[in-house]
């Protein structure tokens, strides 16, 4: 009796084991096939249909915009399209479709469009740091011949156009620029007894402490780890560099230079010793977790839990609806180590480009010339707290932006992009390796300084030179 029962148990076990092996097969191969499955499913991702060209012009043009739909920008786009139809009668019947792509999805969506050949945009907006990598990837059409005959070309800020050019070929045109600065509230500064915006690191830290004392339970500053675009200002503000390229094109990491190390020590110390930044910001961007589109310091600032933080003027759009006080928000440029001039800031912004596989190359370019002419690009920039890509318009706008924009306008005069536009920067910093964010995070969590920075420096140079860490 006992024996028979035992054999029943064994039989059951064998059955479960067979099931186990079958499930094991499922489990392991579902992970091993993830890449092909996702590329297969990608085709269904994009929405608007591609255009078919006719003699008089394409039936429709698709423009990919980044971010979430903003009503004022939709109105702006409608007026641009009306102008486009008027200026180019051959496109009078061409419908322009705008598709909004969340920033976090942009590379995936470009990759899907390129690899599937379906649901491709004719024009896409790109972050200016995306342009070198995407041009190298081959998703952008060269624009040299168009640019040489366009009236707008001459007035563009030369540095912005250079960012879009690789070995003589230009793949995109700058559409607007944007810089980060420190956000604060004038009423809080008053209560904390701060009379002038800080212009040195020491003052910034002291003011953060004052604000924390005046507003118990809040944090003075946001020493987030995952926004190298903002952290770069501290390195540059100490006279250091992230990485530099010699004349032969070889990159050298500069993280272990004394000036750069001073910036790293100061920034990490905002959390570890000055205690003006909460631990939850370690590993976060200004919008919270890596893939989040709202939250983090941006939300905390709006809710009055954070007294100062670094962001661009565009971030007003993501402040929470129940923000405590938006009337007193103001800005000052990120201070340099010893003042009095502000630290250089990362010159961010967006470009417009023609998608390489678009069947409507000429029509797409013609629409870009309307979207990006001096009048339209300037009115667009004014809508969203950006700067025009035209030198003359930037100079003109410095006096017209109001107190909130003043800090940004001041900062914009001192912009730097390299090495954040290096061809392999995306591998180094955007998700795949996050070299500098991971270094800052580990230092804040107690890793030994010298070896951690040295390891990050080696990795950074390897990636910038070869595109891979090993």
């Amino acid at each position, binding site marked *: 009796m006992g024996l028979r029962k035992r054999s029943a148990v064994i039989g059951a076990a064998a059955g479960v084991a067979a099931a186990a092996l079958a499930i094991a097969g499922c489990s392991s191969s579902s992970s091993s096939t993830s890449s092909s499955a996702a590329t297969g499913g990608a085709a269904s991702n994009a929405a608007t249909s591609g255009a078919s060209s006719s003699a008089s012009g394409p039936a429709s043009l698709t423009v990919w915009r980044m971010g979430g739909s903003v009503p004022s920008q939709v109105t702006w786009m409608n007026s641009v399209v009306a102008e486009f139809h008027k200026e180019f009668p051959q496109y009078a019947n061409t419908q322009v479709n705008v598709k909004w792509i969340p920033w976090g999805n942009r590379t995936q969506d470009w990759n899907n469009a390129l690899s599937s050949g379906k649901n491709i945009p004719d024009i896409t907006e790109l972050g200016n740091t995306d342009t070198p990598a995407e041009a190298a990837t081959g998703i952008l059409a060269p624009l040299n011949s168009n640019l040489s005959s366009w009236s707008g070309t001459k007035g563009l800020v030369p540095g912005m156009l250079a960012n879009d050019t690789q070995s003589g070929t230009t793949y995109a045109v700058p559409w607007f620029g944007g810089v980060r600065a420190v956000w604060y509230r004038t009423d809080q500064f008053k209560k904390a007894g701060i009379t002038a915006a800080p212009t040195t690191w020491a003052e910034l830290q002291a003011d953060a402490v004052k604000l924390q004392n005046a507003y118990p339970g809040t944090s003075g500053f946001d020493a987030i780890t995952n926004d190298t675009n903002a952290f770069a200002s501290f390195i540059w503000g100490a006279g250091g560099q992230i990485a530099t390229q010699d004349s032969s094109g070889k990159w050298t990491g500069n993280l272990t230079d004394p000036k750069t190390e001073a910036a790293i020590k100061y920034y990490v110390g905002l959390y570890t010793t000055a205690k003006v930044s909460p631990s939850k910001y370690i*590993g976060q961007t200004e919008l919270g977790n890596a893939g*989040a589109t709202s939250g983090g310091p941006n939300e905390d600032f709006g809710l009055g839990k954070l007294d100062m933080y670094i962001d661009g003027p565009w971030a007003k759009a993501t402040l929470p609806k129940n923000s405590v006080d938006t009337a007193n928000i103001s800005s000052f440029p990120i201070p340099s180590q010893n003042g009095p001039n502000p630290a250089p800031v990362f010159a961010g912004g967006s470009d417009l480009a023609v998608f390489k596989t678009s069947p409507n190359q000429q029509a797409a370019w013609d629409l870009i010339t309307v979207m990006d002419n001096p009048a339209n690009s300037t009115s667009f920039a004014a809508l969203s707290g950006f700067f025009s890509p035209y030198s003359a318009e930037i100079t003109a706008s410095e006096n017209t932006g109001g107190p909130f924009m003043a800090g940004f306008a001041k900062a914009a005069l001192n912009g730097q992009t390299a090495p954040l536009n290096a061809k392999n920067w995306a591998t180094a910093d955007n998700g795949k390796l996050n070299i500098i964010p991971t270094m800052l995070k*580990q230092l804040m969590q107690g890793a030994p300084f010298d070896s951690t920075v040295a390891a990050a420096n080696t990795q950074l140079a390897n990636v910038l030179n070869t595109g891979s860490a090993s």
Partner: protein
Amino acid sequence: MVTSSQNRPGTPSPAGSANEGPEPRGPRTTTGRSVSLFPDRSFQQRAGIWIRKRGVGPYLLLLPATAVIAALILWPAVQVGLFSFQNYGLMQISGVLPTQWVGWANYSQILHDHEFWVSLKISVYFAVVVVPLTLIVGTLVGLLLERLGPKMRMFVSVSAILAWATPAVTASVVFANLVGTDGGVVDWALEKLPSWLGGGAHWAGYSWTNAALPAYTVLTVMLVWTGFPFIAVTVLAALRTLPSELHEAARVDGAGPWRDFWKVTFPLLRPVFLVLALLSTIWDFGMFTQAYIINGQLGNPDQYNLGLYEYAQAFTQPPHYGVASAAAFVLTIILLIVTVGYVRAAIKQGALA
């Protein structure tokens, strides 16, 4: 011939009878006779006879499942295997550049990648902690269920199964909110705890997700919570097949519950435990969904396990599908080695022999 006839009584299963050689003679002569008696039988009947004569029945029955597995798992796996030896990226997918064979370069890149070893370490530590924990909790609940009355047993099993049935994404989002820095109930409760219990103000806004240790602690609790019911129910099912005489005999000999479990229950259930341990290892070692959500999507590489590492290779810019495929195969090979180890142990136990 003699040996096969001797073997025949030992293989009374339907699978054995369908094979041509050892097929019992009786039925075949019956069908043979009936052919001559009814020459006008239908196509289905004739096909049935052909199938029985050739012994292809089992294979025909296996065919649909095999075809589905081949199409959905084997073929993609073969493709992933090919990609893993290719320089396969965006340019290759879109046809801008031709695909190049790169030999073992992708594998060598992974094995020389510091991040790979970090993520492997995290995956191994995680499995080493979670698998035994799940088994212990599951077994304890299984033993408890056996002792409960029918109503209570139903109540406890349904509650447990609800945890098991919670989809991974749902459970992860719930746990991410429980440990959230703004209004998460865990931080709130720890803050309220008296200081002699480890509570206090330093828990306010404590981030559970920005370092590997706290993040994988949360994941451990979550995976034990979602994993133990399956163990408990399986152990309960196995326990109920055990003869009560053995427990009675043990008790008569003076064994308490502890000795009874280790001397009677555990040895008899060892094959079941082996299988459950294998399953848990595969689930926990290859975990992706939960880690992706709790870590706040990809975040920083010092918090990757193998699943996140592999995903990051393929789906961050620029995409390295070849390297990711190689990483997927490395993960598969590790799991195969683990599986073979368990199966060997099971065979030694006589469980699968």
